[in-house]
């Protein structure tokens, strides 16, 4: 891995570009402590501690990047989305529901390997049959009714799951496609979970 917590060049750019955080001193100390006090375990290697560019911007701006920076970086994230070659964005909602239930993957106690769970119910309400759902993200129940009429909704949902940061740079939601956690099939199945009229999410 690149041992430095943040690539030096980028750090410099950020220093110039963004107003220095008021407590930047403690942030620097925190990064030094993090660097010193973590050890690899299972698949969770030390390089995970390094901020990528997006994380660095969100971390330095309290998740509120200046408008221009945010928009530009969002556009870049959107440009990174790879859509299926066959042009079909909807898969099997049943497979999607199963995937949505699973929160497994990427922790030091998980077996390495892809794809991982969709983690959806950890944060979202989807099917009314699943009463154990989180509220970190918005409810997605009745998604088709509430959102289905928007143009290019399939493309929106596909890209949002692929890279949520394309729409909100410092969103809490992981970039499932971008980091390779979910593949094309899995994302299609999740799109179907939200947009298939037969999906329990729309019942």
């Amino acid at each position, binding site marked *: 891995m690149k041992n430095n917590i943040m690539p030096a060049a980028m750090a410099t750019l950020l220093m110039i570009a963004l107003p220095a955080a008021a407590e930047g001193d403690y942030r620097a*100390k925190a990064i030094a402590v993090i660097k010193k006090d973590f050890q690899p375990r299972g698949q969770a290697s030390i390089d995970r501690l390094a901020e*990528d560019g997006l994380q660095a911007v969100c971390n330095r701006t309290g998740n509120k990047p200046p408008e221009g920076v945010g928009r*530009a970086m*969002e556009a870049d994230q959107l440009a990174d989305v790879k859509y299926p070659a066959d042009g079909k964005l909807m898969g099997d909602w049943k497979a999607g529901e199963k995937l949505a239930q699973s929160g497994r993957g990427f922790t030091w106690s998980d077996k390495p390997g892809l794809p991982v769970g969709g983690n959806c119910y950890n944060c979202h309400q989807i099917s009314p049959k699943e009463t154990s759902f989180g509220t*970190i993200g918005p409810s*997605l129940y009745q998604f088709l009714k509430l959102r289905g009429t928007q143009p290019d909704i399939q493309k929106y949902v596909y890209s949002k799951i692929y890279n949520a940061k394309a729409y909100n740079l410092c969103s*809490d939601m*992981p970039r499932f496609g971008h980091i390779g956690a979910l593949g094309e099939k899995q994302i299609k199945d999740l799109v179907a979970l939200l947009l298939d009229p037969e999906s329990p999410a729309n019942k």
Partner: protein
Amino acid sequence: MKQNLIGALCAIVIMGGAFAQTPKKPVAKPAAQTAPVVEAKDAATIEFEKFRAEMEDSNPAELFEMKGEEQWKTKRGPKNVALAESCDLGQGVGKIDGAYVKMPRYFADADAVMDAERRIVWCMVEKQGFKFDDIAKKPFANANFTPDITNLVTYVAGHSRNMKIAVPLKEPKVREAWEIGKEIAAYRAGPYDFSCNTCHGTDGKRIRMQNLPNLSTPAGAMKGVQGWPGYRMTGGVMLTHQWRMGDCFRQQRFPEPKYASDAVAYLLTYMIGNANGQVYKGPGIKR
């Protein structure tokens, strides 16, 4: 790692793009979701709370307290010394009443800010002659094993029952630990871009059925402090606050924080410090 490469490249490109040129046209954002968010305190939570008092009243944690008391008072280790006659938790050698709620604090003899568990480990190493690496090898309980340190922490915590949290945040070293801890809590990294605050930085959120305390508020921080060390019903094991910090990082998809390290002590300083003034009920029972 793919993520780091793309991220770093894209950030550099963007910095150029964002400041050398006019920002690109913003992407249209679809309207915000309108479906109602279910209230944090649902029927299930209320149902759990009905049995809470009874569960806390007869808590298997007491079994570990008993064991910890015996271990605290017994001469042990290569130096054959009892912690009761050698270990200063900040209230004087061997004094444990109220010690737990006044940590983390700065200990000049160790020149470090230490939470209760870190301090007891320090005593076991410095006073009793145990090897740190041996303790750190298996620091937390599993189905077949409970480390001595867990019993000891539980015993010490039991002697702060119904006392107010009083982390000495006015001490400059403790204050600095709090500030660094705050930054650690906000630090996003890893494959999922999570920080502690992703789950624990906002009021009224849940993961699945579980309420997520906002650790930046006094009430939320207290929820994160209350009940630790705790008897975990899942697996029936006694686990400490240090363990809980590590498990958060696990779920954050981070690597593991080193046992009894600055990182954990500072994070605990932030969290417990935010809970100052509130009443600690002693070792608890957890889901």
